[in-house]
């Protein structure tokens, strides 16, 4: 395991001054891309991801069409300048895996069966990466889908949790992600209370993992409120 030079928890506080269960400052902007059917930008501290949705739209070549439902396609991509060492814009293995797990995290929430033979495309661009990019992207994508008017069973809220210097924490930043002992990516449909994403790497006992899942659920509920607020703000009737 990679070891950090500095301590990641000092006197109960994290490298960025947060308490273990504290989320970073969350910023949500909606309709950031005028050409898209729906779009949103979400920032968790320095991590910033833009999501846009196109569709449901005609899907060609025809052999890709599903006759009883729409298909959801996701592309997670990191801008070359979003990280310390320039990232090649070619999709790497990590981006391909993340595109898949993000798609599967969103799919349960969407009434795909309402739009046979079409595709719904979700594009995610990480503008700046400082940990937890996939979950930030899921939050943005879920808003963008709602803003595109796509019928959904629930919003999808996501956050990361993990173990850093022996302490269980919420919303990992880049350093904690790199040098922590374990990290978990988690997504929740909050009204239905169902999990749509669960990934873990690192070392955890079952008890620690269960506690982290509980912490992730609480954090997702807070994010849910912020997402709803952003949507209400947009559709507010103005005098």
């Amino acid at each position: 395991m990679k070891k950090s030079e500095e301590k990641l928890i000092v006197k109960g506080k994290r490298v960025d001054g947060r308490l273990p269960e504290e989320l970073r400052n969350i910023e949500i902007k909606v309709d950031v891309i005028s050409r898209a059917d729906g779009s949103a930008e979400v920032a968790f501290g320095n991590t910033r991801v833009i999501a846009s949705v196109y569709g449901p739209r005609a899907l060609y070549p025809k052999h890709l069409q599903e006759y009883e439902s729409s298909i959801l396609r996701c592309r997670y991509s990191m801008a070359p300048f979003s990280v310390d060492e320039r990232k090649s814009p070619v999709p790497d293995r990590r981006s391909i895996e993340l595109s898949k797990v993000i798609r599967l995290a969103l799919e349960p929430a969407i009434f795909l069966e309402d739009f046979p033979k079409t595709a719904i495309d979700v594009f995610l661009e990480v503008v700046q990466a400082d940990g937890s990019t996939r979950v930030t992207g899921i939050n943005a994508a879920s808003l963008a889908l709602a803003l595109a008017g796509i019928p959904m069973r629930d919003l999808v809220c996501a956050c990361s949790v993990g173990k850093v210097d022996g302490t269980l924490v919420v919303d990992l930043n880049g350093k904690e992600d790199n040098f922590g002992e374990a990290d978990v990516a988690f997504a929740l449909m909050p009204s239905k209370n169902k999990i749509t994403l669960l990934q873990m790497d690192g070392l955890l006992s079952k008890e620690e993992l269960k506690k982290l899942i509980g912490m992730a659920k609480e954090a997702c509920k807070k994010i849910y409120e912020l997402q709803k607020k952003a949507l209400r703000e947009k559709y507010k009737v103005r005098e």
Partner: protein
Amino acid sequence: MESYVLELLEKGKRIDGRKFDEFREIRIEENVVQKAEGSASVWLGETHVIAGVKLELGTPYADSPDQGVLIVNAEFTPLASPDFEPGPPGEDAIELARVVDRGIRESECIELEKLCITPGEKVWCIFVDISILNHQGNLLDASALASLVALRNTRIPKLEEDKIIRGEYEGKLPVRYKPINITVAKIGNALLIDPSFEEEKVVESKVSVGVRDDDKICAIQKQGSKEISFEEIDKILDLALEKSKEIRKLVK
């Protein structure tokens, strides 16, 4: 076929007559490829994968200059299933390789710090290549098991003035743990161990859990296009912890 699988499950039965928490017959053959530094063939019922380990000299990662490098790759060879096509690895093959990689890496089972030759310059790179030879379901557990067995019988080639002498060895790869991957499939209310190909077609969710010898969980990956409840995750973790012990006994 799919509706028959579901119909049987409602009656508490699986299509091949297994119990819900029963693996198919597991067969392991070691050292199946003499050219490789380590290798293993694993069968879960008719599912067959082969893992080979090759060692090369290379440069370490900048953030771990005194550690060996681990690279896991999987090929869904088109001979293994009518659904596989020739070409570069697709997202399923990439995901599988990355989950296997995480189980090995995060469990810290390979003592990578012992594989450094010159810090910052020269280390051993361990290439684990997985070839799927027959796809009858649960490729992940089969691949993780084959990779572990192959790593545990891997020999380190002899070095003479920093050149590899192929075919001659000096010592074994230091592998201290046996991380086991257990995939649990959810279909309706049923939680099934080692899903077969027919069962995977109707799977709602699958959760793969990597478990180390000391019951520490080292990797989790939820798959499948449906949601899952908190209670189910809890049951899945218990099942994985219990089953991992049984599988670990098969590994030398």
